Every structure is written in structure tokens, then in C-alpha cells.
């Protein structure tokens, strides 16, 4: 319970940072997608269900304040969380390489989805231009921040999970 509340708090902070500080810094070519990093991290560390929930909440926040098609981002982030959750049982979560790969794939897929559904359908055909000016800067920035943030998320989550396990043992409940 406590762990979930803390994840919610982190989510909120990420959203605040992403919409204020990072969106307004000029020298960053693009705003890093902190919400995506969080979703991928939680999904990869905790599995499908929590990844999905985190992603859903992230998307919902964006939809609430910025979306004009309600639920669009919620769906995209939800799928992201689910996709990453599939790999939590295959790989160990103490290495930053797999999350980096996952973030790359997810960020590209995410932006491709936004481009195809919101831009291409309106007849904006200059794929190369969008790729160079929007998608790639976004990817580079997000990857950079993944390097910094994944360790942090990992440590926070790890310590909280340990505590949770201890609490369970003392109550004689094993899972």
C-alpha cells in the first residue's frame, strides 16, 4: 500500500516536472518523456498489472490536462506498461540496458502512434521532417533521462518491495 502511494507521488512529481521545468528549458531540444520512463520502469520491475496501472494513470493525467481526445494517451501508456510488463519475468531488473532498449522501442512506437493517428491522418506527409525534428530529439532526451532515472526508480522500488516482504512474513502470510 505504502509502495503504491509512493509510486503515485513519483508519478505526480514526474508530471509536474515534465510540464513545467523540462518543457520550458530551451537548450533541451525536446522535452524528455518522464512519464514514459516511469511507466516502462514500473512495468519492467513489477510486471504487467502494475505497469498497466501506472501507464494508465500517467496517460489519464495528460489527458485530463492536455488531451483533446480523452483516453488517447491513457491507452498508449497503458499498452506501453503492459508491453514492458511482459519482460519483467524474463530479465533481471537490476541492469539498465534492458530498460534502455525497452524505452527506445516504446518511445518510437509511442511517437509513431501519435504521428500516424494525429498527424498523418490530417495529411501531414513529411515523415522525415517529423522524424528528424520531433521523434529523434525526443528519443535522445528520453534515453538520457532513462540513464539517470532508472537507477533511482529501481532503488526506491527495491527498498519498498523489501519492506513489503518483511511485513508479510511477520503476519504469517506467504505468497
Amino acid at each position, binding site marked *: 500500500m505504502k509502495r503504491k502511494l509512493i509510486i503515485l507521488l513519483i508519478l505526480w512529481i514526474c*508530471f*509536474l516536472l*515534465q*510540464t*513545467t521545468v523540462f*518543457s*520550458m528549458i*530551451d537548450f533541451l531540444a*525536446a*522535452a524528455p*518523456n518522464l*512519464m514514459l520512463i516511469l511507466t516502462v520502469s514500473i512495468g519492467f520491475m513489477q510486471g504487467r498489472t502494475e505497469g498497466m496501472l501506472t501507464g494508465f494513470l500517467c496517460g489519464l493525467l*495528460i489527458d485530463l*490536462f*492536455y488531451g*483533446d481526445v480523452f483516453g488517447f494517451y491513457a491507452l498508449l501508456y497503458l499498452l506501453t506498461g503492459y508491453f514492458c510488463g511482459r519482460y519483467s519475468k524474463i530479465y533481471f531488473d537490476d541492469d539498465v540496458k534492458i530498460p534502455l532498449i525497452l524505452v527506445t522501442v516504446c518511445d518510437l512506437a509511442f*511517437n509513431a502512434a*501519435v*504521428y500516424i493517428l*494525429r*498527424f498523418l491522418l*490530417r495529411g*501531414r506527409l*513529411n515523415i522525415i*521532417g*517529423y522524424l528528424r*525534428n*520531433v521523434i529523434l*530529439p*525526443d528519443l535522445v532526451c528520453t534515453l538520457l533521462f532513462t540513464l539517470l532515472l532508472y537507477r533511482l526508480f529501481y532503488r526506491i522500488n527495491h527498498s519498498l518491495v523489501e519492506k513489503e516482504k518483511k511485513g508479510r512474513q511477520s503476519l504469517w502470510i506467504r505468497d
Partner: protein
Amino acid sequence: MLSVLSIVCVGLILLTLTSSLVTAPVRNVAGYIVTPFQNGINHVGVWLTGQFSGFNDVKKLTKENEELKKQVSDLTQRNNELVQNQTELARLQELYNLDKKYSEYSKVAAQVISKDPGNWYSTFVVNKGTKDGIAVNMNVIGQGGLIGIVTEVGNGWAQVRSIIDDESNISAMAANTSEPCVVTGSLLGMENGKIDFSGLRDGDNAVTEGTSIVTSNISDRYLTGLLIGYVSEISLDSNNLTKSGTIIPAADFRSLREVLIITDLKQTKENSN
């Protein structure tokens, strides 16, 4: 252990006391291996040098140095405040000029508090909402021209879609000929600071580079005559009837801090009775 450490210490002292000519090549080589530590080591070296060369008046100098540092930080602080005040003054003065320019409308000043989290859209949120009399479809101006339109409103916030947003379409006209055209926001165009316009009839070639484009009188959401920007490029379409091209927006969207929201809504058939 102790001897190893002592040797290291003495070695360091010797290296720093002798001129940098000796240490420079060493550092160069070491720099490739221990770059992160280099800075710290250098600090130690400087400290040691200071201990030896100025041992006598070190207390006096330290004290003086501390005082000066305090003074410097104090002055820097004050200078920062002044510089900040000055830029704020310039911004507010600009806003004030705009306020006078469109004085027939009543306006509410608002501050931009956050931006769209992605890189695809150009919407932002301001800190005024329904309790300040803001409603959907109110026009937003600032920085010398039209900024956008309120698309959603809450109690203490309002979401504004800027005119450079890729999904923004504005019914506009050329200021000198009053011929209507459509101004479309463009994500890629804004990389060069430009947005697009199209469908402009201009038989007499009266619209040239630098002509101002303002909001049209037949738009149902935008008030008439708000400055959008200046024509940058113009060319004849393949239908030989209309012209299209690009506009440089009058407002600077890179540094949006304060905006003015016009609380008068455009009169339409629906809201006039």
C-alpha cells in the same frame, strides 16, 4: 600503508610545488583514465600550494577573502535582482503597450504555468479560470500579437491552444486588402519560426512580404483585427487563383510568461440573443 600514503602525499606536494610543466604531461595521460577525479585532485594541489606559499598571512587573507566573498555574493544577489526586475519591467511594458493597443476589449492578465508534456502539440495552461471570468473560445494575446484561444477552462486554470499548434486553424485576412485566408499552425514550420497560410485571393499583387495578417471579421471565434503576424513568403497556388505561403508570428512563442485573455467573446448568432 602509512608509508604508501605519505609517499603519495609528498609526491603530490612536490608535483604541485614544481611548475605545472612537469605535471602537465602526467595529467594529460592520467586525464584519460581518471578524468572524474582530476578536478578533486587539482583542488587538493591548489590547497597545498596555498598552505606553503602564504603561510604567514594566511589568516589575514582568509578573513579578507571571506569578507570579499560575502560582499561578492551580496552584490551578485542584488545584481541578479536588478536584472530580473529589468527584464520583468520590459515584459510588462510590452504587455501594457498591447493592452493600450486593443483598449476597446476588457482583458485579464494571466501567467503561463505549464506546457503540453509532449513535443507534438503547442498548448499551455494559464493560472486564470472561471472564477476570473474566463470562458471557452476567449482569445489570448501577448508579446505583440495573437497567441491563441482558450479551449478548456477549470476553476483556477484555462487551457490555451496557441496559433502555432499543428491543429489550429484561424480565419484571417490581409490587413491591407481585407481578403480572407486561412492561417494554419505548423509544427515543422515552427522549427524556422513560421506558420502557414493558404487560400488568399490577391489579384492585384497587393500582399507582399511584410504585409500584416490579422484575424478576419467573418471568423466566429476570433475577434476582428488581432495581429497574427507578417507575411514571410508568398506564392501563387497551382489553381492560379489563390496564394499561399508562410507567416512569421508577431508573438514570440519561445518565451511566453504572461499573456492577456480578452474576456469579450466574438458575437455570433448563438450568443447574441
